[in-house]
């Protein structure tokens, strides 16, 4: 259902039915594939069965990510004409809309930096990946932050192609990714990171953030999208 909500909000924002929104959310053990990825090539199905990991697909491009309860996800939906939208260039969108998260992570005490195309890194290790799209009259940007995720499961369930690792001169996923917990050297909750990112967004963009819940329309649309798309194997596992 989370993937359906992820699509429902930018649609509602684009239609003027919802205000500009940042949504924070969690998944239990789940692989989220990019919309162009092959489940067969990217996912270790046996390891998913062993670890009880679900496989779903989002509507945006980019690479597969592993979610668990130690992972903080966020999605930003802005109408195309919103003053924070840096234009219709996806690279500029990723850079601009990652700034709030970068600032938030820095407030916690880590040296986070945006790394094109779509990563946030700490000392050369990826701590967050972003994806997004420009459609439905909306600029949409979402990302996942590894707060205290179990990286050992991540390495089991994702088939990372050799070409990706060779390029970065590292031998494993675990050596090229990190968590906020590991970088801070202390326990940190997803709530603490969320609050830091909200602070980062407010100070970085000069906007206010008010908490709220999904509207009736967003929920209705999400339910419809779930039934017709996101609950279906042909969407999640094909091609």
């Amino acid at each position, binding site marked *: 259902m989370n993937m359906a909500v992820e699509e429902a909000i930018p649609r509602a924002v684009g239609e003027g039915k919802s205000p500009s929104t940042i949504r924070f959310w969690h998944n239990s053990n789940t692989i989220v594939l*990019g*919309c*162009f*990825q*092959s489940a067969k*090539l990217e996912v270790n199905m046996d390891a998913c069965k062993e670890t009880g990991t679900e496989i779903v697909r989002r*509507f*945006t*491009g*980019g*690479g*597969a990510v592993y979610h668990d309860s130690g992972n903080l996800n966020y999605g930003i939906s802005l109408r195309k004409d919103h003053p924070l939208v840096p234009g*219709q*260039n*996806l*690279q500029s969108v*990723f850079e601009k809309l990652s700034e709030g998260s970068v600032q938030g992570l820095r407030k916690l005490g880590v040296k986070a930096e945006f790394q094109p*195309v*779509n990563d946030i890194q700490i000392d050369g290790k990826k701590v967050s990946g972003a*994806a*997004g*799209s*420009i*459609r439905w009259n909306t600029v949409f940007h979402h990302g996942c932050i590894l707060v205290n995720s179990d990286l050992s499961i991540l390495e089991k369930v994702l088939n990372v*192609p050799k*070409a*990706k690792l060779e*390029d970065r001169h590292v031998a494993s996923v675990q050596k090229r990714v990190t968590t906020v917990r590991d970088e801070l050297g202390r326990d940190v909750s997803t709530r603490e990171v969320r609050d830091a990112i909200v602070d980062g967004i407010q100070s970085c963009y000069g906007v206010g953030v008010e908490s709220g819940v999904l509207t009736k329309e967003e929920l209705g649309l999400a339910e419809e999208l779930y039934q017709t798309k996101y609950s279906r194997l042909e969407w999640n596992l094909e*091609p």
Partner: protein
Amino acid sequence: MERWADYKALGGKLVRVRLREEQGQIRSIRITGDFFLVPEESLGKLEKMLEDAPLREGELRLLVNRFFRGTGAQGLGVSSDDFVKAILSAKEV
């Protein structure tokens, strides 16, 4: 004949090509990977345009360039040149 390639684009993303070739022409092709392409639905159009195309650089380049011009699609982490090179690098399985 089945051919496939995992091609690392200059922009850092992976383009994975699986195609069926007959007599030097693409009969069917599936392009997957971790790149970005907006609008997302346009990838299906590109695959459709490549069906029955000769596996030759000049023709492929024309087709892929025509796809980007015609659809106004925006790639990130991957370029038209990367799609062409990925297809041409597909080796027999």
